[in-house]
């Protein structure tokens, strides 16, 4: 490293020059947090987000290793790049946390979410709902003469798009699971 030649008044070598010029840009990241499935672990993780003012856009939790009592928490969060780094560091230092994976930063990943939509109506709207469901590869998992429940799996964007289309066709209720995600490739 070269000598520090800093002129008085200059901030050329200031740490602040390292600051990302896109500082105020809000990024959305999908984090996978592998934790011990012990009592209160979800409250602990959520408490970190609320206590420090971080956002949770989506949250999915389930035990993924029954023998090892490990759960995987997939959380979609948003914030400036600094905040995202800080969230990962704060999660990483928690005692029951084994690993924090940033699926957005670690390269391409697959994200899937499941949604159930109840659409009620008759006549042309009902036919149109069924037709669109077919296009989106949503399945009708319950049907009456004036309603369907569609099951759709896909990226959150796809589910958003399908939801918007169903709204004028009689969408009355929706349940979404939140995102499950894995990085692509063998690792």
């Amino acid at each position: 490293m070269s000598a520090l030649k800093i002129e008085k008044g200059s901030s050329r070598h200031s740490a602040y020059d390292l600051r990302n010029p896109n500082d105020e840009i809000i990024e959305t990241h999908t984090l996978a947090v592998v934790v011990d499935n012990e009592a209160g672990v979800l409250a602990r993780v959520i408490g970190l987000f609320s206590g420090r003012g971080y956002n949770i856009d989506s949250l999915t939790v389930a035990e993924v290793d029954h023998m090892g009592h490990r759960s995987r928490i997939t959380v979609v969060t948003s914030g400036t790049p600094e905040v995202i780094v800080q969230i990962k560091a704060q999660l990483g230092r928690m005692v029951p946390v084994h690993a924090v994976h940033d699926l957005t930063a670690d390269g391409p990943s697959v994200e899937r979410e499941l949604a159930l939509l109840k659409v009620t109506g008759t006549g042309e709207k009902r036919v149109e709902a069924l037709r669109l469901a077919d296009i989106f590869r949503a399945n009708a998992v319950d049907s009456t003469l004036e309603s369907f429940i569609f099951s759709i799996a896909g990226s959150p964007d796809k589910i958003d798009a399908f939801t918007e289309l169903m709204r004028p066709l009689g969408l009355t209720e929706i349940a979404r699971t939140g995102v499950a995600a894995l990085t692509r490739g063998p690792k």
Partner: protein
Amino acid sequence: MAQQMTGARMVVQALKDQGVDVVFGYPGGAVLPIYDELFQDQGIKHILVRHEQGAAHAAEGYARSTGKPGVVIVTSGPGATNAVTGITDALMDSIPMVVLTGQVPTFMIGSDAFQEADTVGITRPCTKHNWLVKDTDALAATIHQGFHVATSGRPGPVLIDIPKDVQFATGTYLSPTEAPVGHYQPRVRGDVEMITALVEALETAERPIFYTGGGVINSGVLASQLLRDFVDATGFPITSTLMGLGAYPASGKRWLGMLGMHGLYEANMAMHDCDLMINIGARFDDRITGRIADFSPESRKAHIDIDPSSINKVVRTDFPIVGDVAHVLEDALRIWKARGRRLNKPALAKWWAQIEEWKAIRCLTYKRSETTIKPQYALERLEALTKKYDRFICTDVGQHQMWAAQFLNFDAPNRWMTSGGLGTMGYGLPASIGVQVAHPDALVINVAGDASFLMNIQEMGTARQYDLPVKQFILNNERLGMVRQWQELLHGQRYSHSWSEALPDFVKLAEAFGGKGFLVSDPKDLDDAIMEMIAYDGPVIFDCLVEKHENCFPMIPSGEPHNKMLMGDAKTQDAISTSGAVLV
């Protein structure tokens, strides 16, 4: 050899196996089985406090003055909630502490039982980790893991909530060596490449400074020694946060004094103008940085911290090094020596000349008085008359705390106990009790304010019961001095509720508690009274009536950078700008 025993017995056994010789606590319904075991086993000394907050602060004092974890035992419900302030204080200042709380029996949890509180829920954000143990077989391993978590990595408080039926039931005891090791193993060695990069930077630095904090003390005595070696070998100036005082001796040649809001002029100016800042175990707290955008604008910054989340949290770092202070300093020293101990000596000489100019301002100068005791004068005399002792100083929170940090000098680590991060009034008396328990023959002084002192006054009873000769040195201005100072600076001298109209007679109070009281108001009587206080073998309340309207200077007004300090003769009206006013 795994043994069968009750949960309550396990608690005592586990504490003994962890090397605990003293606990601070208060019994109640949900911990009666544990107290029964303490009664039958004299291996652990129990200090009965008068309020559970006192137990937590006493454990903090014990921990800070010994480097060992402090242990607290309290009952369910109010016992646990009363301890919360002390637990939060320990979290903010990274003090290792193990808190054992009783809980209603497992089959009654959730029924709003008598003295039931969701202790793990309440303490989740104020502990490093906590556990509710529902199975006696898991109790011993959980306690051992609790000690491991409290003392590894960045230290902090842990809490173990033990329902009463778990204490009565019999299970298998595991010793610390038999208990499963958790995966929690924070990294202690720093990245060698980054340490080398830092060494390269310090070889050429023109205006370097060491900025050290409580992490050096927490890392242990070796870290303080290595820091001294490093500072002496490089000749770099060193300043420290409130929490780090004593890691480098105040009598050392390179010492600039404390930095920050009420830090010394030379320390803050050097921080502002440096070109290489080496942060060792400090966390860029807002009391230190002032206005972030103008914080040390020309420097490259190294940050050595065992907690990865501290790095780049507040200030962007050029040399981030995650690791234990002692390990990293050892590596840095070794690498620097191996590369030929290079330094930019001509530039350093100029840097020191500049620093000497700042020092010559003598920022701690205050207006002396023949008739009233200036708080600064009281501390100067206390310093002069006690420095020959290996003394331990605690403080409460406020002006007196800052004056104590400015006017008392510390040449060794673990001699200075103060509530830094949380700023807990009422910390000092119970903390001094914890210190005195750990060091029965030492001179232990709590520098207090009249308002802070009353917040845990009941602990005088504890001091008397255990013959702890703690000296409570009150700088009594009949005011909430720091609140009053801010009201003067910021709120047009409207002193809203910041004075005490009905203070007790502290001398009588001392006598009522079985101690000795001193009342001093004339500067001429001060020395003799201090000598008498030191000589008295028992708890003392020293009521030192000081100037009521003294402000604590120097001061960086909130929202201002390091080079805009208010000095002792500053005009105080409107000293804080509108944007600074919203800051604490």
